[in-house]
């Protein structure tokens, strides 16, 4: 890989639960660009990515929305010091304040997704631009 620019890969996936496996398969292949990424960094990045994709699958579309029109774009970037993902979808705006996300009580059976993503990586960002949702994840690469 080109050390200065890093590895870049992007792909589209339908917004449905089954796409989680597709995203995880693509990420697994993506790591082959640079085998020096530590296990701990791979784990936390995958965790955040899956939680954000899961959030989009669960919340970005009305239940009766036409399945053919629901698309998610994932762009992955792997540089010498950071790993990034930008996710973009054409769903409903996410009514979310990432600064106010907290971990629910220990007996909760849902609601941990975004809190887990925020805890796992160094930056999680969301913005609505021109009718699309954009999520950005960034994780600094650590040596171990």
């Amino acid at each position, binding site marked *: 890989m080109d050390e200065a620019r890093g590895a870049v890969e992007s792909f589209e996936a339908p917004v449905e639960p089954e796409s*989680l496996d597709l995203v995880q398969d693509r990420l697994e292949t993506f790591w082959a660009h640079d085998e020096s990424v530590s296990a701990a960094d791979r784990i936390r990045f995958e965790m955040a990515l*899956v939680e954000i994709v899961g959030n989009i699958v669960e919340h970005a579309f009305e239940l009766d929305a036409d399945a053919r029109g629901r698309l998610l774009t994932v762009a992955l970037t792997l540089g010498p010091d950071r790993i990034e993902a930008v996710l973009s979808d054409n769903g409903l705006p996410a009514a979310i304040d990432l600064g106010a996300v907290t971990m629910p009580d220990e007996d909760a*059976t*849902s609601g*941990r*997704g975004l809190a887990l993503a925020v805890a796992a990586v160094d930056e999680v960002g969301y913005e609505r631009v021109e009718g699309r949702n954009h999520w950005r994840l960034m994780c600094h690469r650590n040596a171990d």
Partner: protein
Amino acid sequence: MIEFDVRTTDDGIGVVVPRGRLNMVAARQLRETLTGLVEGGTSRIVVDLAETTFLDSSALGALVAGLKTARQAGGDLRIARPTESVLTVFKLTNMDKVLRPRDDVEGAFHG
């Protein structure tokens, strides 16, 4: 993709072994598997996570739901042998105290 092995030991403990990734799709199956065991009269359950390569918040929710269901039926749900990836999720969500990992399946209900 995921597969679940389900067996019952001689002393009536249900052992569930998810092999692969426990994400949103698999979490639904996990929840149904755990509920099915309790409804079938097996309320002491060990979930053996040694071959679970990944676990997300929806699967964690399924484990918590299984724990509640098992306890309501007078039993319990215990976790054995989590992988590094799964243990990271437990720690980041502060669930490692509630789903306290055990070193082996056989000893999960002893000692």
